C-alpha cells in the first residue's frame, strides 16, 4: 500500500503549483485553472486521510468541494466572459477595476 506521506507530498506539490500559477499567471483563465489545481490538491489530502483512517467524512467533504468548485467554475466563467466583452482582454493586470 502506498504510504500516506506520498499522497500528502503530492498534494502539497499540487497546491504549491496552484499557488505559484495563481501568483504569476496573467491570463485570467490560467489563474482560474490554478485555483482548481489548489482545490484538487486539498481534495487529494482529504481522500488520502479518509482512506488512511477509514473515515467517510473526508470523502464527503471532497464531494462538497467538487460541487462548489463546479458551481464556482460556472459563475467564474460567466464573469470571465463578461469581463472579456467589456475589456476585450484576459490580462488581469489590465482589469484593475477594484482600485479605489
Amino acid at each position: 500500500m502506498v504510504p500516506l506521506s506520498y499522497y500528502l507530498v503530492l498534494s502539497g506539490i499540487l497546491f504549491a503549483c496552484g499557488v505559484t500559477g495563481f501568483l504569476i499567471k496573467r491570463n485570467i483563465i490560467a489563474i482560474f485553472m490554478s485555483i482548481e489545481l489548489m482545490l484538487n490538491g486539498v481534495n487529494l489530502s482529504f481522500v488520502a486521510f479518509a482512506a488512511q483512517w477509514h473515515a467517510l467524512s473526508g470523502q464527503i467533504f471532497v464531494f462538497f468541494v467538487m460541487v462548489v468548485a463546479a458551481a464556482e467554475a460556472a459563475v467564474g466563467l460567466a464573469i470571465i466572459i463578461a469581463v472579456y466583452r467589456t475589456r476585450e482582454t484576459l490580462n488581469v493586470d489590465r482589469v484593475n477595476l477594484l482600485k479605489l
Partner: protein
Amino acid sequence: MTPNLYLWLIPVLPLAGATINGLFGKRFSRQTVLAIALGFCGAAFVMALWIAAQFSSLALPHVEKLASWIRAGDFQVDFAFYLDQLSLVMLLVVTGVGFLIHIYSVGYMWEEGGFYRFFAYLNLFMFFMLTLVLASNYLLMFIGWEGVGLASYLLIGFWFTKDSAASAGKKAFIVNRIGDFGFLIALFLMIKHFGSLNFAQVFRIVGGMPAETGGGGLLTAIGLLLMVGAAGKSAQIPLYVWLPDAMEGPTPVSALIHAATMVTAGVYMVARSHVVFDRAPQALMVVAIIGTLTALFAATIGVCQTDIKKVLAYSTISQLGYMFMACGVAAYSAGIFHLMTHAFFKGLLFLAAGSVIHAVGGEQDMRKMGGLRHYIPWTFWTMTAATFAISGFPPFAGFFSKDAILWKAYSSPYGSWVYWAIGVFTAFLTSFYMFRLWFLTFFGEYRGEAIGHGDHLQVVGGSRATAPHEHGHGGIHESPTVMLIPLVILAVLSLCGGWIGAERFDKFLLPALHAGVTAYSPEEAAATPAPEPKEHGGSESLLTAISVLAAASGLFLAWLLYQRRPQLPQEIAHALGGFYEAVVHKYYVDEIYAAVFVKPLIDGSTRILWQGIDRDVIDATVDNSAEGAREVSDTMRHMQSGNLRSYAGWIAAGAAVVIAYMVWTGTR
C-alpha cells in the same frame, strides 16, 4: 360638608380659551376670537363671583383635589385647589381686573396684527395666574409662578420684530429665573425637612416650631429664599430691573401683568407663607428693609422719567415696595389690602395711559403731551381718580391702604419709625411724580408735533406689514367706548375700593393670615401681644394727617414746578448736577449690572466655554480624530491597487504567516 365648588374650572376655563384661540384663532374672525377670549375669561369671573356669593356658608379652608400628580414614598403632590379668604381676594382681583382689561384690549388691540395671538396669551396668563392663587401646594403654585413668567415673556415680546421688545422679554425672563432659583431651593428645603409641599401640612409642621431668634436657622433660610423668589417676580431690589423694560409690551399687558396681578404674586406668596415668616424675624426684617428701600429708590427714579409708562413702571415697583414693607412688619392684611387697591388704581393708570397714548398717536413722551384734558375728558377724569388714589388722598382707595401700611410700619412689633419716615417721604415722592405726570399730560399747552402723521409709530409695531398705524388716525381723539367702560369701572373702584377699611379687611382675612399664629405655643402668643399699637390711638390720626400732608405737598410741588413755573425744573436739575444725572440714568443700575454680571458672563462664556472648552477641547478632539483617520486611510489606501495578483500575493503571504505560526506553536 361643603359642596363641590368645581374650583378647577376657574383656571381651566381661560386655558380652554387660550387653547382654542391659540390653535385655531388664525382662521377665526376678530369677533369670534373676542367671543372666545372674553367668554372664557368672563366665565371664570362669574365663577369667582358665584363662589364669593356663597362664601359665608363655606367651611374654610376649602380644598378640592382634582388628581394626584407625584407620589414617591411618603411624598405626595396633588393637583388640588385651596380656597380661603386670601385666595378669594386674589381670585376676585385677578378675574375682575383681568376681565376688565380683556374688554379694554378689544379696543386697544383692534387693529393690531396677531390679534388672536394676543388674546390667546392673555387667556394663558389668566390660567397660570389663577393656578398660582388657587394652588394648594407650593409645587402647583410654582407651576403657576413659572407660567405667568412665560406669559409675561410672550406678551412683553408681543411685537417681537422690534429688537428692544424681544430683548426686554428675554431680560424679564432671565431676571425672573434668578428669583425662581431661590424659590426652588426653598421648596427643596421644605421637601427635605418637612417632607411635604402642601400648604396645610407645611404650615402645621412649621406652626409647631418655635420662633427662631438670634442667628436664625431653617425657617429663616426658607423665608429668605422665598423672598428671593418674590423679589424676582415682584420686581424688588436687586431684581427689579426687568420691570421698566417690560413696558415694551402692549399697554393692556403692562396694566394686567406688570401692575395689577402678576407682579403682586410675590406679595401673595409671602402672605401665604406668613406662618414661616412669623417664626423667622430676621427674614421678616429683610423683607421689610428690601420693601422700604425699593419703595424709596424706585420713587426717586420715577420722579425723573419722561416716558409716561416708565413713570408708572417705577411707581409700580415703589408701590410693591410698600406691600413688602407691610408684609415685613407682619401686617400681611395691610399688604394684601394695598395689593387690591393698587390693582384697581394702577390698572386704571396704565389703561388711562394707554388711552392717552392712543389719543396722541403712539407718543409716550410726556414732554410732547400737555393740555389733553379738553380732548379726552373721560380719560382725564378717570386718570384723575387714579392719581388721587395712588397719592393717598382721602377718600380714595389708596389712602386707606397706604395709611394702613404706614400705621403698621410704625406700630407693629416688628415696625420702626424709620420704615414709617421713609414710607411717608416715599408717599410725598409718589404724589409728586404722579401729579407731575398729571400736569404734564393734561394741563398746559399741547407740545406735540402736528397730529395725524404717525411716522413715529413704526417704533410701536416693528416692520411687519400689519404694523399698528391705527393710533395715528385723525387728531387727538377720545378712545372708543369699549376702552372707556373699564376705565370708568376701575375709577369707581379706585374711589370706593378702600371704603371697606383696613380694619374690616383685616378681620376678613384673619382666619387665613393668623391661623398659624395662634397655633404655636400659647405662652409665646401671650408674650407677643397681638398687633397692639405701641402708642395710643391719638398718634394714629396724627400719622394719618402727616401722610395726607405729604401727599398734598407733593401735589403742591408738582403744581408749582410743572404748572406755575415750568422753567423751574430745568434750573433745579442744573443745580443738582451729578445727582440729577444719576437719577435720570436710573442710578446706572443697568450699567452696573451689565458690567458686573452680564459682561463677565459673556466674556467668560466666550473665552472659556466657547473658545476654551467648546472650540479647543471638544471640537479639537473631534476634528483631530477625523483628521487622523483621514491620514491613516490615505496611506492605507495605496494597498488597494486593484491589481488582482497583488491581492493574491497578500493572501498567500497571510496564509504563509498563519501556517508558519501554527508550525511554530506545534513544534514548541
